[in-house]
């Protein structure tokens, strides 16, 4: 499976990483090198093998559905690039 320029553009878009048009060919080349390496997995007979979800067979723990912490608005906003009036601020989302 070979990745072309258009696929590279699409993947960059899905990952929300801006890639300049001029860089797409090089990026596609890098993807192909890595995916070429990964192709070896097709040699393995995986018939009947369940995909692993966790290295230790365990059921994820559940906790009571109660508030455990909160009231930390100031702390939560303290690292925000743009916080106003107790909120994270972002560019306009809806026209």
């Amino acid at each position: 499976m070979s990745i072309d320029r258009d696929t590279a553009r699409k993947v960059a878009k899905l990952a929300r990483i801006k890639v300049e048009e001029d860089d797409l060919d090089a990026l596609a080349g890098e993807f192909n090198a890595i995916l070429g390496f990964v192709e070896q997995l097709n040699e393995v007979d995986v018939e009947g093998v369940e995909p692993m979800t966790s290295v230790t067979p365990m059921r994820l723990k559940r906790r009571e559905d109660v508030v455990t912490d909160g009231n930390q608005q100031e702390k939560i906003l303290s690292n925000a690039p743009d916080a106003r009036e107790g909120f994270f601020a972002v560019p306009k989302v809806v026209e």
Partner: protein
Amino acid sequence: MSELNKLTVAEARDKLRAGDITSVELTEACLAATEAASALNAVVHHTPELAREQAKAADARLQAGDAPAMCGIPLGIKDLFCTKGVPSQAASAILNGFRPEYESTVTSQLFDAGAVMIGKLNMDEFAMGSSNETSTYGNVVNPWRRGNEDTALTPGGSSGGSAAAVAADLCLAATGTDTGGSIRQPAAFVGITGLKPTYGRCSRWGIVAFASSLDQAGPMTKTVRDAAIMLQAMAGHDPKDSTSAELAVPDFEAAITGDIRGKTVGIPKEYRMEGMPDDIEALWATGREMLADAGAKIVDISLPHTKYALPAYYVVAPAEASSNLARYDGVRYGHRAKLGQGDGITEMYEKTRAEGFGAEVKRRVMIGTYVLSAGFYDAYYNRARRVRALIKKDFEDVFAQGVDAILTPATPSAAFPLGQEFDDPVQMYLNDVFTVTVNLAGLPGIAVPAGLDGQGLPLGLQLIGKPWEEGELLNFAQTLETRAGFVAKPSNWW
């Protein structure tokens, strides 16, 4: 007393408890060594004020007779750990300026035990790399050099700053994290001990996530005994990490008895790689003899899916990374790109991530996005997870046959020059060929320095243990350490 920074954790602990030295003296020695070692670029955020404050508090505890083993011990902390009020940015520009409002569980356990932090240590960006060349802070330089050459060598990665700092005696020990070999490979490259515990032994809470099903924190130390002492303080169940194991933490140091008689050590034939340097082949054979000489039974074993570990890793790890790193969007913390007229929220995300992530991180996030995307999920991601199950079963099978530990080389080469492999990602990935299987199977693994190559560079051996048997693994490791008698240190050129 001079050169206190050269003490091991165990030596310092005993001297501190005996009142021969104070933590303040020990800490000052480490701070001075750190000041003088800027050429290594291992320490990227210095915290001398915090260190002095912690050292004073530790001395008070020691005087009061309340002194856990790590009390008063100066440590370096990998930049991947969130440390309250201290920059913690995973060596990424996207976390520029981030100062956590909280403390990771592992560092808070270490500090509760009285440990002192001299600073945050350099690493590969988001722990993605094997040479510490992807860091926003620049490369770390290995304290070791080849013979009389002055070629700058890599300390390995991703915990390259931790490795260099411990090898150069800037601190007594350091925290590391290991997703595919990031503790063990750098430890081997600088001639120190590096332990990756069983997945779930240490809490991942507050450690910047790379690949959550593989990441595990562990100690990087000058000796095997130190690794046992430090792991003791780092390990334990944490309700804030649902994958941390609800198991009692045994006394790891007490497990080091020096007696491995009657134990069985497996030698996996698949780890004999074509083109492996003779020095490493010879070291592996010597390691085998040393364990046999100590009374262990050596058996040949097969781990048939070894070859597929790296390809499986380079699907699973990027997939998890693409999901984990989605949080860096310029909204809640770190860098936000300057926006142009008319730019909306999508442009903000795309520009922020393009500016904030380095090339290797972008590459892995996008590969991860691709293997998880509709139409490819089964062919790549699910297939890799199936192969991962087979790799884990390989280990379960040999342990079921009575094998207690597995001996392999730690790395396929000694430390290489900075820049040598940087332009070829796939070549760089091969550094983890002997270590990555252990992460995929969730097992404990330890790198122990065991000799020097023809150019005078350290080489390590790896021991792999059964799940939750770090104590037994440390006992094997110490046997190897004692018999190898590795005492070489890099000469101070920095």
